[in-house]
C-alpha cells in the first residue's frame, strides 16, 4: 500500500474537530428537536465510526425514555422495551455525567440490538438527565471493536453541545407555546386589548380590540397610537398619562369614534414592564359597552331609567314577590278616543297613539315615573315604588300638569295638519300598595296592586277632558307647594267605597297663544303640504310675503302686536292653495278660523286675520292699513330687481293650467302692471321707480 494514501491520526482528529465545530455551528439553526437529534446522531456515528446508534429522550410526563432518533439500527428488535430512568445504564450514566462504555451483552434491553459494544453519553438540562446518545460497535477494517477512551471524550463533548442545543430548542418551543397560548387567550377574550412599545407603536392587537375600534389589525400594527387614535384625543391622553405616571389610568363610559362609528367603552391603560420592572410600553384594555347600552336603551322604552339601573345593579329585583309600601299612582286616559278612532284609518290610529305615547312617556320618565302599563289608550304610572322619595307625589302631579300642557302644543300641531285634537283626563291617588314582580318566572312585570291603585283608576274615569283629579291624600302631600293650585270638587262615589271620596282638581294655566310657535307650525305644514308643482306659490313666496309685511309694517310705524297678527295672516294667506287654488283666499280664511280657534287665539282677532287673507284676492281690496300692507307685500316683487325671476316662476305655474305664449305673457304683465297701484306710502316710495322700469321694459318688448 502506498504510504501517501494512509489515513493518519491527524486527519481523523481534524475530522473530529470539524464535526464538533459543525455540530456547534449547526445546532442553533434547528427549529425542531427531532431534526436536531437525528443530525447529532448521524454526525456522532460518522465521526466515531459507530456502526449504528440511537438517541433516547425522557417522556415529559414520566421517567420513561423513548427512542427519538435512530441510525442503522433494527428498531423492531427494541419494540416493547421499557427504558426506565432509574434502571440499568440510565442510572449509571446519570451518576457519571459523562460518556461511558456499555456492556451490551449483559444489558437485558440493549442485548436485543445484537450489537456487541456500546458507548453512551448523557444529554443534560442543567443537572437533569433528559436523554442519552448511544452508539454501537466501533468499526475498523478488521471488524467491530470497543470504543476507545478518545471516543468517550469526543462523545461527551458532542453530548454537551447537543444538550445545550436541545435546551435552546426546548426553550424556544416553550416560548412559542407560551406565545401561542397567550395569543389564543388574547384572541378569545371579549375585552379589547392592544399594547404599545416604548416608541408608542402598537405592536399587538387582539381580535376584540380590532372589532371595537373598527379597524383591521394590519391597519393598526406598527402605527403610532396617536395616529391610530387621532380622532380620539381621550385615548391618546390616557396612554400619555400612563406613560408619564407609570400607573394604571382608567376612564369609564367614554364615547370613542371608531372609524366613523361611535362606541361607548370603559378603558384602562397600564404600564407594560419587563422583568427588571422597567417600562417597555403600555397595555390598553377596552370594554365595549355598546351591547349594554343597546340593552339599556331598549329596556328604557319600557321602564324608567331608575328601574333599569336598579335591575342591573341588584339581581334580587328579578325575584318574584312583593312588599307593602306607600306609592302614588297616576292614570291617564284619552277622552272619546274610541269614537274618534272609528273615523280614522287604522294606520292613522296607531300613528296618533304612538305620537301621543312618545310625548307622554318622555314626561313620565322626566319625573322618575315608572310606566307600569299601557292599557289601550290609557297609561298607568307608578311613583315611589320600588324606591320612594319625598318628591314622589309632587312628581306625579308635575307629570300630570306637563302632560296636559304638552298636549295643548301637540293638539295645535294636529289642528294645523287638519287632524282632530286629543284630550285626556288624569286621576292621581296615593296610598298603601303591594309592589313587586308579579307573574311567572318566564314573564314577570314590576307592578303595584291594591285598593289605592283602583281608586286612582276611578279618579281618572271621573276626570273630564283636560282635567287632573287628585284624591285628598295627594292634595295633602302637595298643597304646601305654591306651584300647585287645587279646586275642591264635590265628593264622588266610587265603586267599592262606601263613603264618597274627597277630590280636588289641580288647576294649571293653559299657555297663551304663542305667535312664534304658530308661525313655525304653519311653515312646517306649508312645506309638507303645498303642491310641489306650484313654482310661484311656494314656501319661498310665502316667506317673502311674511318678510315684506314686517318690513313695510315697521316703516309704517305699526305696533308689535299688530305686526304679529300681520305676519300670522301672511303665513296663512296662501295656505288655501293646498286644497282649492281657485278660491284659495276663502279656503285659507276658513282654515285660519278653525285653527286659530283651536289654538286659543283671541276670538275677536280672528276676523282681522281672515280679513287680511281675503284682501289679497286679486283685484286687491284692502279696507285698513294692515290689509294694505299685506296686499303690497304680496305684490312687492313687482317693484323689485328680482321681478324677472318671480314672473318666470309665475308663468311656469300658470302654464300648468293653459298654454300661454311669450307674447300673451307680455300682454298680461303689461295689463297687470299698468293697473297695479301700491297702497302704502312705504311701497309707493320704495317700489314705484323699479316697477316703472319693469313696465317700460315690457312695453319695449311688446313694440318689438
Amino acid at each position, binding site marked *: 500500500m502506498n504510504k501517501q494514501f494512509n489515513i493518519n491520526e491527524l*486527519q481523523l482528529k481534524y475530522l473530529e474537530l470539524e464535526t464538533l465545530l*459543525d455540530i456547534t455551528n449547526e445546532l442553533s439553526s434547528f427549529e425542531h428537536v427531532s431534526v436536531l437529534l437525528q443530525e447529532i446522531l448521524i*454526525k456522532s456515528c*460518522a465521526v466515531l465510526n459507530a456502526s449504528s446508534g440511537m438517541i433516547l429522550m425522557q417522556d415529559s410526563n414520566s421517567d420513561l425514555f423513548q427512542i427519538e432518533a435512530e441510525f442503522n439500527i433494527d428498531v423492531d428488535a427494541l419494540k416493547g422495551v421499557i427504558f426506565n430512568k432509574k434502571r440499568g445504564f440510565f442510572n449509571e450514566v446519570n451518576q457519571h455525567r459523562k460518556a461511558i462504555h456499555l456492556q451490551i451483552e449483559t444489558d437485558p434491553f440493549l442485548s436485543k440490538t445484537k450489537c456487541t459494544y456500546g458507548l453512551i453519553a448523557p444529554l443534560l438540562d442543567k443537572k437533569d438527565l433528559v436523554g442519552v446518545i448511544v452508539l454501537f460497535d466501533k468499526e475498523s477494517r478488521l*471488524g467491530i471493536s470497543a470504543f476507545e477512551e478518545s471516543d468517550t471524550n469526543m462523545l461527551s463533548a458532542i453530548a454537551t453541545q447537543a444538550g445545550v442545543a436541545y435546551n435552546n430548542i426546548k426553550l424556544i418551543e416553550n416560548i412559542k407555546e407560551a406565545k401561542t397560548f397567550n395569543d389564543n387567550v388574547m384572541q378569545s377574550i371579549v375585552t379589547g386589548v392592544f399594547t404599545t412599545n416604548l416608541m408608542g407603536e402598537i405592536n399587538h392587537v387582539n381580535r376584540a380590540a380590532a372589532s371595537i375600534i373598527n379597524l383591521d389589525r394590519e391597519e393598526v400594527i406598527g402605527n403610532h397610537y396617536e395616529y391610530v387614535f387621532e380622532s380620539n384625543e381621550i385615548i391618546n391622553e390616557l396612554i400619555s398619562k400612563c406613560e408619564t405616571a407609570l400607573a394604571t389610568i382608567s376612564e369609564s363610559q367614554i364615547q370613542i369614534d371608531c372609524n366613523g362609528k361611535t362606541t361607548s367603552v370603559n378603558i384602562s391603560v397600564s404600564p407594560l414592564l419587563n422583568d427588571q420592572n422597567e417600562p417597555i410600553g403600555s397595555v390598553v384594555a377596552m370594554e365595549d359597552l355598546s351591547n349594554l347600552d343597546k340593552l339599556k336603551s331598549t329596556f328604557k322604552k319600557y321602564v324608567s331609567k331608575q328601574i333599569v339601573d336598579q335591575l342591573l345593579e341588584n339581581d334580587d329585583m328579578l325575584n318574584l314577590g312583593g312588599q307593602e309600601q306607600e306609592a302614588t299612582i297616576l292614570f291617564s286616559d284619552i277622552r272619546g278616543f274610541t269614537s274618534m278612532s272609528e273615523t280614522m284609518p287604522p294606520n292613522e290610529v296607531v300613528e296618533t297613539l304612538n305620537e301621543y305615547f312618545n310625548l307622554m312617556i318622555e314626561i313620565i320618565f322626566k319625573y322618575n315615573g315608572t310606566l307600569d302599563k299601557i292599557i289601550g289608550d290609557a297609561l298607568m304610572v307608578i311613583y315611589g315604588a320600588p324606591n320612594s322619595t319625598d318628591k314622589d307625589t309632587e312628581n306625579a302631579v308635575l307629570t300630570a300638569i306637563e302632560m296636559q300642557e304638552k298636549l295643548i302644543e301637540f293638539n295645535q300641531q294636529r289642528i294645523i295638519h287638519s287632524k282632530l285634537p286629543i284630550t285626556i283626563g288624569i286621576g292621581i291617588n296615593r296610598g298603601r300598595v303591594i309592589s313587586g314582580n308579579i307573574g311567572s318566572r318566564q314573564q314577570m312585570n314590576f307592578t303595584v296592586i291594591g285598593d289605592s291603585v283602583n281608586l286612582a283608576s276611578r279618579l281618572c274615569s271621573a276626570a273630564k277632558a283636560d282635567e287632573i283629579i287628585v284624591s285628598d291624600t295627594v292634595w295633602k302631600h302637595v298643597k304646601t307647594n305654591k306651584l300647585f293650585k287645587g279646586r275642591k270638587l264635590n265628593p264622588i262615589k266610587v265603586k267599592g267605597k262606601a263613603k264618597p271620596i274627597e277630590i280636588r282638581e289641580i288647576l294649571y294655566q293653559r299657555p297663551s297663544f304663542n305667535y312664534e310657535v304658530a308661525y313655525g307650525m304653519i311653515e312646517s305644514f306649508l312645506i309638507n303640504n303645498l303642491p310641489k308643482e306650484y313654482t310661484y306659490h311656494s314656501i319661498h313666496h310665502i316667506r317673502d310675503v311674511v318678510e315684506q309685511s314686517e318690513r313695510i309694517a315697521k316703516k309704517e310705524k305699526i305696533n308689535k302686536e299688530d305686526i304679529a297678527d300681520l305676519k300670522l295672516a301672511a303665513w296663512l294667506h296662501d295656505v288655501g292653495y293646498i286644497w282649492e287654488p281657485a278660491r284659495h283666499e276663502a279656503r285659507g280664511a276658513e282654515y285660519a278660523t278653525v285653527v286659530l280657534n283651536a289654538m286659543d287665539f283671541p276670538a275677536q282677532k280672528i276676523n282681522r286675520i281672515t280679513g287680511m287673507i281675503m284682501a289679497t284676492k286679486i283685484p286687491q281690496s284692502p279696507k285698513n292699513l294692515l290689509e294694505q300692507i299685506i296686499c303690497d307685500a304680496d305684490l312687492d316683487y313687482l317693484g323689485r330687481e328680482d321681478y324677472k325671476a318671480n314672473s318666470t316662476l309665475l308663468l311656469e305655474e300658470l302654464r300648468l293650467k293653459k298654454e300661454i305664449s311669450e307674447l300673451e305673457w307680455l300682454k298680461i304683465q303689461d295689463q297687470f302692471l299698468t293697473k297695479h297701484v301700491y297702497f302704502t306710502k312705504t311701497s309707493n316710495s320704495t317700489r314705484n321707480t323699479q316697477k316703472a322700469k319693469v313696465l317700460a321694459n315690457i312695453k319695449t318688448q311688446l313694440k318689438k
Partner: protein
Amino acid sequence: MSGFIKSTKEENQIVIIETDGYLNNEGGEAISTICYEKMSEGKNKFLINMASTKVVNSIGVSILIEIIEKLQEVDGKIGYYNLAPIVSKTFNIMGLTKYSTVFATEEEAVSGL
C-alpha cells in the same frame, strides 16, 4: 446485490454504482466487491452516485482509498457525484479528493472522468 448497492450500470466504458445508506465498513466492502469484480473484467473507470448516501465514516473512506490504490495499478480512475455537503467535507478532510474526482452531476462525471 447488497442493500447498500442500489444499482450498477455501464456507460461509455464507465461502471456507475448507485449507493444507498451508510458508507461504513459494510458499505465500503460492497463497493469494493463490485469494483474488483469489474476490474477483473477489464474495467478501470468507476463512478459512484452517492445521492442516497448521507453518512460516511473513516472506514468507508479508507476502503475507497484501497480501491483507488488498486485502480492506480491498472491506470484506472474513480469519481463520485451527487455528494451531500457533509460527505463532500469528509472526503476533503480525509484527503480522498487529492486522488479521485468529485463531480456535481452524472453528465459531468461521465464526460469528465
